[in-house]
């Protein structure tokens, strides 16, 4: 006995409904945050912070050795509760495995001061609820760098510290639509949508 009659009309409807659905990039983080995990996990900011508050520049290179790394872990683990509690205040910690380093959002460990320049990004997008900046300097994380609405005409802006050199980025509108910066040069993207490019240079001495 067949389970059901194959009806092409129903099958057509079903195949439309089977189309994959995209999930908010923040979803996984929200779930993990809701678990109330006690260990040190990558924690991203929920709200935008001024760049000064986000600077964590402690870093330990592999050369520093296991002892230093172990000491750091001891600090990290013993301080984990403190970190998790202050999560609400938006203190971010990103832990990488290639070098044991605490990085700030602009990913500038060990960089001398002159190698980090504050750069302002602006874009005009009227009639939207949010705009975020994503790029290689913030791991393309839509939660990391929310932009601020400066005028009712739809001028969005954010300023953040960037390492000297070439960076690729995009703006993300309402967490769904990726757009490039109309004022910036573009590079072709491997993923089908072009990136904007900014080259950050040292200030004139």
């Amino acid at each position, binding site marked *: 006995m067949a*389970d*059901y009659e194959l*009806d092409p*009309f*129903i*099958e057509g*409807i*079903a195949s*439309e*409904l*089977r*189309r*994959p*659905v*995209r*999930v*908010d990039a923040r*979803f*996984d983080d*929200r*779930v*993990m945050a*809701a*678990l109330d*995990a*006690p*260990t040190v*996990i990558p924690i991203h900011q929920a709200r935008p912070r001024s760049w000064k508050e986000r600077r964590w520049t402690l870093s330990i290179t592999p050369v520093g050795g296991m002892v230093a790394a172990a000491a750091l872990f001891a600090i990290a683990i013993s301080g984990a509760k403190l970190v998790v509690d202050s999560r609400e205040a938006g203190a971010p910690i990103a832990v990488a495995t290639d070098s044991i380093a605490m990085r700030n959002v602009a990913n500038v460990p060990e960089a001398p001061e002159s190698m980090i320049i504050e750069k302002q990004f602006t874009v005009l997008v009227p009639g939207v609820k949010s705009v975020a900046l994503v790029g290689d300097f913030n791991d393309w994380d839509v939660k990391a760098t929310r932009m601020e609405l400066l005028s009712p005409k739809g001028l969005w802006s954010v300023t953040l510290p960037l390492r000297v050199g070439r960076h690729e980025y995009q703006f993300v509108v309402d967490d*769904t*639509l990726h757009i490039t910066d109309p004022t910036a040069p573009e590079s072709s993207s491997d993923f*089908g*949508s072009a990136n904007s490019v900014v080259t950050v240079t040292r200030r004139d001495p």
Partner: protein
Amino acid sequence: MAPSRGLPLQNDDDAAVVARVLAGQTDAYATLVARYRSQFARYALRMLGNREDAEEALQDAFVRAYRSLTRCDEPEKFGSWLFRILANRCRTAGTRRGRREKTFVRDEIALLDASEDHPAERAAWREEIQRALMRLEEDHREAFLLKHVEEMAYEEMAELTGVGVSALKMRVKRACERLRSELHEVQGG
């Protein structure tokens, strides 16, 4: 990643991940979240009709699953177990629904798919489908989605819902009849 036919609800690797989580490596749970969220998001969305409710139900399900992970008797079937939790969440969420009319389909349009012909028409058709789906009775919608969208066998569906196979067949039949009558007019040429 785009889900293939049916849900891969059995995965040996899941057992290993569950074991790690239970041993204290909470981070490992992220692997399970990443593995199942897209597939289950689709079900939640079709069932509840809007993004916010769907994501809420999905997040809720993941958190509940985590909290009761010790009660997952067959960790290699974590997927099934989680889906059962999700289906329950969706049934509960359904009772609170009604306020939000806007469906998720509009958001999908913004997410490219320029490869399609006549994207605007397809989008409108999809909205109609979702609207018709939402007009079904909850039990019928659930049965239809499990059978035709998640492509489960009736025995699996019975295990998941606790409802008998013949009752499920009846629900699917009613759902198909209703959808056919509502959508045939809309589809036109």
